[in-house]
């Protein structure tokens, strides 16, 4: 029962072709998970929807948008960003499960393109985020949110959200490769809340104690929140600090910095995994 060994790829073009093919195979694996366990995906999609309803209707009445405006219009861009943050928890879970079960080692002992393991994960999670954004978009429209900007502005805003998710994916991959067991995942998922709430996503930082407000303003997530509010034409909280005034620029810079830090860390960690 011998099986012919395929020829090794030749040249950079051959290697690229393999890297793409292998990345796609790993991505397909993630997509197959969706079809085999739709409940997990649906649960992940419903969680932000539940948050929108809770914040929009339970707390919404008590919320005051600085400068006036509908709180749900203020909230939805914040929830878009929170959805990108929650997605990171799923990245960490998937990556650490593979690592701790030895699946990652098996991949590394195979003649596949090493990049495919992480790239496939990243593509799967990005597709998941696109789906999550689409669902939340629809829910937003249903609760009275609207994108008032031009089509180009709207596309740009979605691009910024996905750019953030992309950067957070690599952060999640790195944390996932670090985790020794499920305890760490709980920690990451718990930390998502204070980190996500200490932003301008739900309330204006100006309503927080001074020093806390400053941290919230400088939280990289706040820049994407503010930039997407601006591009969607939703009410923002204003803010006259430098960081608040340069939200769109920083919504590109912050993810770029996160990616620049965590991409090489992830690759190095992946290459030197011991088991």
């Amino acid at each position, binding site marked *: *029962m*011998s*099986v012919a*060994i*395929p020829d*090794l790829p030749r040249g950079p073009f051959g290697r690229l072709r*393999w890297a793409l*093919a*292998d990345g796609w*195979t*790993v991505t*397909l*694996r993630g997509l*197959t*998970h969706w079809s*085999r*366990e739709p409940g997990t995906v649906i649960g992940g999609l419903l969680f932000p929807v539940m948050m929108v309803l809770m914040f929009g209707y339970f707390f919404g009445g008590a919320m005051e948008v600085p400068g006036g405006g509908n709180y749900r219009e203020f909230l939805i861009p914040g929830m878009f960003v929170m959805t990108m943050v929650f997605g990171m928890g799923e990245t960490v879970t998937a990556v650490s499960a593979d690592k*701790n*079960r*030895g*699946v990652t*080692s*098996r*991949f*590394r*002992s*195979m*003649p*596949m393109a090493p990049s*495919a393991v992480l790239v496939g994960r990243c593509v799967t999670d990005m597709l998941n985020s696109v789906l999550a954004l689409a669902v939340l978009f629809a829910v937003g429209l249903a609760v009275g949110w609207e994108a008032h900007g031009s089509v180009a502005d709207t596309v740009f805003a979605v691009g910024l959200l996905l750019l953030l998710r992309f950067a957070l994916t690599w952060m999640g991959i790195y944390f996932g490769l670090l985790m020794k067991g499920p305890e760490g995942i709980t920690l990451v998922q718990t930390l998502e809340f204070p980190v996500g709430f200490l932003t301008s996503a739900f309330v204006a930082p100006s309503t927080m104690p001074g020093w806390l407000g400053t941290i919230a303003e400088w939280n990289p997530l706040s820049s994407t929140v503010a930039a997407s509010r601006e591009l969607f034409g939703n009410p923002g909280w204003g803010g006259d600090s430098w960081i608040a005034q340069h939200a769109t620029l920083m919504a590109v810079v912050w993810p770029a910095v996160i990616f620049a830090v965590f991409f090489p860390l992830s690759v190095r960690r992946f290459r030197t*995994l*011991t*088991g």
Partner: protein
Amino acid sequence: MESSKSAVVAEGLRKRYGKATVLDGLDLVVPEGSVCGLLGPNGAGKTTTVGILSTLLRADGGRAEVAGFDVARQAAQVRYRIGLVGQHAAVDEVLSGRQNLVMFGRLYHLSPAAARRRADELLERFRLTDTGSKPVKAYSGGMRRRLDLAAGMVLAPPVLFLDEPTTGLDPRSRNEVWDAVRALVDGGTTVLLTTQYLEEADQLADRISVIDTGRVIAEGTPDELKRRIGGDRVDVVVRRAGDLRAAGGVLAPVAAGEVVTDEDTRQISVPVRDRAAALADVVRVLDTAGIAAEDIALRRPTLDEVFLHLTGSAPGASAEHPEPHTSDEKKTEGAAA
């Protein structure tokens, strides 16, 4: 160098983690088509050795060839010729067994059709056809491990690394895995097996390398290793505890070494040289002295005893084998009355 006939050759492998030396000049040769057992306590360097040979880790020093290719410089070539089965069932829990095997086949760059065909072959060979479409989550421990073995065999690699393949399995699942491994070996696969279970090495391995603190401290067939510490023993259990002393006296002249008496079990262990003749001698002297024996057994020393002798400490897992004398034993119950 007989590297053309060796599936695995390692020379002077060294590996350090910080200040800890894990491998300290490890040498290993595994002839093609044989099963080599790498036996040692926890932390001896077994998994690190497999990691280096399967291209997961870089050695700090020394060199190694697997299936004729250098593990450091020709990693891709090596990866096409090895299968790695580790301590966990390294498969996707959500996918079905078949989907797992097809995915791995694709990642070995088989065409979609070839990957599907191969998956079906492997499911049948490892008796997983019936459960091929269930999610792996629903599999028993033994089934998962068989699927894991199948995933390591997608390309029918000439060399298979089994890193503690039955750790954590119940005895029945362990037997299932052993049967699967034997079948692979019959098909010509070379196996490097690490284990803490002496019985496992005894059952599967043609040759055993005992490693401790990163070096091979003894090497040979299971029988050679056992012979090295004094050959065979006859264990006699006397019926009356009061006969122990007298039995020890009459058996001493028959023994090839020191007779060991255990009062709790009423057992006397007699080292002997000539297996069959010694057994007859033991029966004869007991009969002459009128001592009734409840049980007389001729046996090889166990690998536990070998290990204790070589390293001065028992291997980590020996506690799980309260009855170490299960193999290579010829009981002659009630031979003397």
